[in-house]
């Protein structure tokens, strides 16, 4: 049974932090659950705590401790066995009941045939035409399937993933929208917002997960930008730059 290493706020629990720190100690971060690694990459607080804990245990001698047993092995296994046994008993009882009970009468099939001629009450004496079968509602045109809406359009770009950070700047620059990894519907407005950006012209660039630039705009004297176009579903990255520096790299999903 996989342990939940996250608390109700979505941050790592103390045991989650400890697990990451031990993985650093063993140089085995690649063996960790991917959700944990992704969270650490995006959460400065949990990452900082994990590095602090690693610094505390890095030189400690664990050689005398032996192998780590499976988490709460005895207790959990007993609990799981009991639950599984109970589930099997319930299933068997239900099956026995189904097999021993007489089969319920099948529902009568009522077939209503449309009469060929019907005397209509609103016009007695006239032979009415058989009711026309209900006309199906006009087909609502389905949304055109996006050209690139396949799994490959959601594959993260390593190069860009490595650039995603919460930019720490002395001027207090901060991106307020979209939240990193936010999912936005195609029909929703795509709004980029930030505060405390350096003065001067900023450039906002949207890239696909293949790092192909799909949009570029200059923003002057504003702390937001609304993208009016429509993006096909998938993973996108966006960058905000000023004349001399890259201010922010983020990602979002279009569904």
């Amino acid at each position: 049974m996989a342990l939940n290493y996250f608390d109700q706020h979505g941050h790592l629990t103390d045991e989650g932090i400890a697990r990451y720190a031990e993985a650093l100690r063993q140089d085995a971060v690649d063996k960790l659950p991917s959700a944990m690694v992704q969270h650490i990459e995006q959460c400065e607080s949990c990452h900082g705590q994990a590095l602090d804990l690693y610094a505390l245990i890095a030189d400690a001698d664990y050689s005398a401790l032996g192998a780590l047993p499976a988490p709460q092995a005895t207790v959990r296994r007993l609990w799981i066995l009991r639950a599984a046994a109970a589930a099997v008993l319930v299933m068997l009882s239900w099956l026995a009941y189904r097999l021993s009970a007489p089969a319920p009468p099948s529902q009568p099939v009522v077939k209503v045939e449309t009469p060929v001629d019907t005397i209509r009450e609103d016009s007695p004496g006239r032979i009415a035409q058989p009711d026309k079968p209900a006309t199906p509602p006009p087909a609502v045109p389905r949304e055109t399937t996006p050209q690139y809406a396949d799994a490959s359009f959601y594959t993260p770009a390593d190069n860009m993933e490595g650039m995603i950070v919460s930019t720490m700047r002395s001027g207090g620059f901060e991106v307020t929208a979209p939240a990193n990894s936010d999912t936005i519907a195609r029909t929703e407005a795509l709004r980029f917002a930030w505060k405390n950006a350096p003065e001067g012209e900023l450039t906002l660039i949207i890239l696909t997960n293949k790092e192909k630039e799909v949009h570029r705009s200059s923003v002057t004297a504003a702390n937001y930008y609304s993208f009016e176009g429509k993006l096909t579903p998938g993973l996108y990255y966006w960058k905000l730059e000023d004349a001399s520096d890259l201010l922010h790299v983020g990602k979002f999903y279009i569904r």
Partner: protein
Amino acid sequence: MQGADKDLQAKELEWLHKAPDRLLAHYQFIIEATVTRFAARGFFAFEEKEEVVQEINLQLWEKKLDRIKAQYNGSVYLRTYFSKVVYNACLEIARSRRRQPRFLSDELLQFTGDNAAGAFEQIAIRDELHRLEGFFRGLAGKRLKSELCLKLFVRFILSMPDLRWFESPKTQSAIAAIQQHFFEAYDHLSDKEVYGIIVDLFNILESRDTDADSLRKWVQQLADRLIGLLNGDPPVSAYDREALKILLRLFFEQASPESVNY
């Protein structure tokens, strides 16, 4: 491993549930070491150390050991989990006393580089180097590239062991260019020139066509991310790019490439 030692983790677990006083006595070294680290970073005065140790013992005995019993799931060593609990307790005490850590200044780092720092400073610097080591280990697949780029970021003079993981028939010419430029002091080269030379190596290895400026920005983002992590929130250090460069140089000088296990 000796047979008697094999059960130490099991013994510690048993003590947690049946003899918590024994566990607490057994783990005093963890409490002492953690409080010392916090004192070294300036959260507590040296004279307060014993008092803080006692306060943590009291907290553990009154409630925190019961909480460990309830919440510890056994997916990590008990002593790692216990270290985290003690770390949290130290932070809580420091915050309740409204203590600000002593920021590690670049002068202090330079001092340490000259081996002139005191014992507490040495402990603090060693912790910083461990945090840096943890950061690199956490990069996993991006570690080699990140380390090489940050070496160039601080103008660290390279040698062949720094490049051994990048050597292949395809990269011979790129490696030759690196040897030509970065195997002796290259402080005179601009960032643009430095990344213009190294970017060829990564483009060959990654089959990409990244330009030098993108690589430069990527490295700056990496450095800023590292600064954010080292400074913490709320801040426990005051690194800027220059202070980070000093710490990185110290790290790369102390880490022998042969000893790094990738």
